């Protein structure tokens, strides 16, 4: 039972990080029809900027996190003006968008290596302190991440449901032409999408770094595939679905290591479990948990 509580808790922590990152990827897809392969590496960048400011430059941790989030958001918006807008104008196909996004992701990863160096980094947070809860060991860093991630998710849910920007984003991803006829300011929605997605991506990177303890330049890439799985699981383009998908996937990944399931999956295979789940969902319910058709033939 203690095992179960432990894994459940780990699953909620992983799930909340995946959910935040997945919303960032999903709203970009919903509004721009762009599968953002660079999200994983921006996640890493967020963690590295934070560690650079807070550990190397002694900026207070919270301030460092905000600066990192704003940095990712600013880069995302800058890329919109330099790359994505032009590609949309020239009616670039899915493949062009894919390849450019992959190119951006490679460039960001190499820049991280050049600017911040090779090797793993750590935040100045207490990695040792743990609490006992129903027999489970709960690390302080995990608890902090879970609390702040939950607050972010609730705030995000309200933003998407109630604010004019959130409504505009949902309207635009449902039907772009109808939304612009109805007076939704397309350019503003696109900028807001990049901004929100950038902030979320940076934050998810910091959270992941805190939970992992130490992290390297490949952290985000390793997380990208589970993030995509969460996005597809929750119906690609649907922000609430992405939240749900993130939590489901986080729980599945952690609980799969539980020893009562034929001894459990070795924990290095967790990303494989994420994909097996994705493949299963696509075979059984390809439209995702909440959605419409994903099959074409």
């Amino acid at each position, binding site marked *: 039972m203690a095992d179960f509580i432990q894994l459940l808790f780990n699953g909620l922590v992983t799930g909340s990080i995946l959910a935040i990152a997945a919303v960032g990827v999903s709203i970009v897809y919903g509004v721009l029809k762009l*599968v953002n392969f660079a999200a994983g590496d921006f996640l890493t960048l967020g963690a590295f900027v934070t560690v650079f400011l807070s550990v190397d430059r002694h900026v207070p941790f919270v301030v460092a996190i905000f600066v990192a989030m704003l940095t990712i958001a600013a880069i995302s918006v800058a890329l919109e003006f330099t*790359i994505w807008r*032009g*590609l949309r104008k*020239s*009616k*670039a*196909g*899915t*493949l*062009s968008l*894919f*390849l*450019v996004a*992959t*190119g*951006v992701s*490679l*460039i960001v990863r*190499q*820049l991280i*290596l*050049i600017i911040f160096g*090779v090797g793993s980094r750590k935040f100045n947070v207490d990695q040792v302190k743990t609490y006992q809860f129903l027999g489970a060991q709960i690390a302080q860093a995990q608890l902090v991440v879970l609390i702040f991630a939950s607050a972010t998710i609730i705030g995000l849910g309200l933003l998407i449901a109630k604010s004019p920007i959130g409504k505009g984003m949902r309207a635009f991803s449902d039907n772009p032409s109808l939304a612009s006829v109805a007076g939704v300011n397309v350019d503003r929605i696109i900028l807001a999408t990049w901004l929100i997605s950038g902030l979320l991506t940076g934050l998810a990177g910091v959270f992941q770094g805190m939970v992992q303890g130490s992290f390297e330049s490949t952290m985000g890439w390793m997380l990208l*595939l589970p993030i*995509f*799985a969460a996005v*597809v699981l929750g119906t*690609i383009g649907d922000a609430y679905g992405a939240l749900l998908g993130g939590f489901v996937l986080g729980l599945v990944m952690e609980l799969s290591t539980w020893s009562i399931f034929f001894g459990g999956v*070795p924990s*290095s*295979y967790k*990303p*494989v479990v994420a*994909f097996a789940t*994705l*493949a299963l969902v*696509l*075979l059984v319910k*390809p439209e995702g948990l909440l959605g419409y058709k*994903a*099959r*074409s*033939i």
Partner: protein
Amino acid sequence: MEAFLQPGFWVFVLVMAGIYCIFALGLQVQYGLGGMMNFGHVGMMALSAYSVAILVITYGWNLYLAAFAGVVVAAFGGALLGLTTIRLRGDYFAIVSIAFSEIVRYVIQNSDNFTGGTRGSLAIPSKTGAFTSYTKTFEPVLTKVQDLLSPILGDVVNRDFAMLLIVWIVAGLLLLFVSRTQMTSWARVLRATREDDHVPSALGKNVFMFRLQALIFGSVIAGIAGVFWSLQFSILAPEDFQTIVTFYAWMILIMGGATRVKGVPVGALFFGFLYAGTRFFEFPPFTWFSSSERAYLRVIIIGLVLIILMIKRPQGVFGKREEMVLEQ
């Protein structure tokens, strides 16, 4: 800088370009004909290369039999990927195919007693327990080719030069074969499915089967590339088969024009020289960086070239613009 003047270095670059040419040709079949955005192509190459090493080292198979088996394993990999995902919409297919190749890599990396894990193919358990190389029976072939050629061509002939000939002869034969298939009715149906699923289905064509065949065909070609990869390097490691390799193949395909078979070798040569040539940027601003940092810069330059290519000339060198932009 010395390497710049050594023919041996450029011979190595040409061998790699040849292997990448074969590898990208597999994508050409899948995307150029079938319109499938396979981003997990490297998975098939990994399956084939590791099959060769494991069958020879652990099970003591004959190398050529193992090479054939490696290609068959890659074909099965393609079939598995296809049967589960071909019905998915393009962007979903791309995501799941990346997942496929990453799963292959994770499994290779974590199965220490079978694939050698992170220590690479050197750690594959052999039948006798002693260290063995799987290319032992191939080296005499290369030596024979060298012996035949050195009287004619002189000093330039070395192991890599023999490999260069073999790789490019196979690449040439495959190019010829693929460009012949372009004129068949099979390819015409596939090209039709690339533009639109419904018309060929209405004409009674089984779109699923045609795509599956193209995916397996492309995987077989990737498997052949994997065999040559394993022969060229004699040592395999899981990190050789990262998604970036698939990305390089896409770059080759796009540079040559995705729908033109003859563009593939041109793209492969261009890529080979771009990749190797960036080693010789020994002037500012590149000298501001250390040599390991310059390795990262090289990938950045390749990424930038691709981004600029996609923005300015998405059709590549030989391609038709309409085929890139009207895709959706």
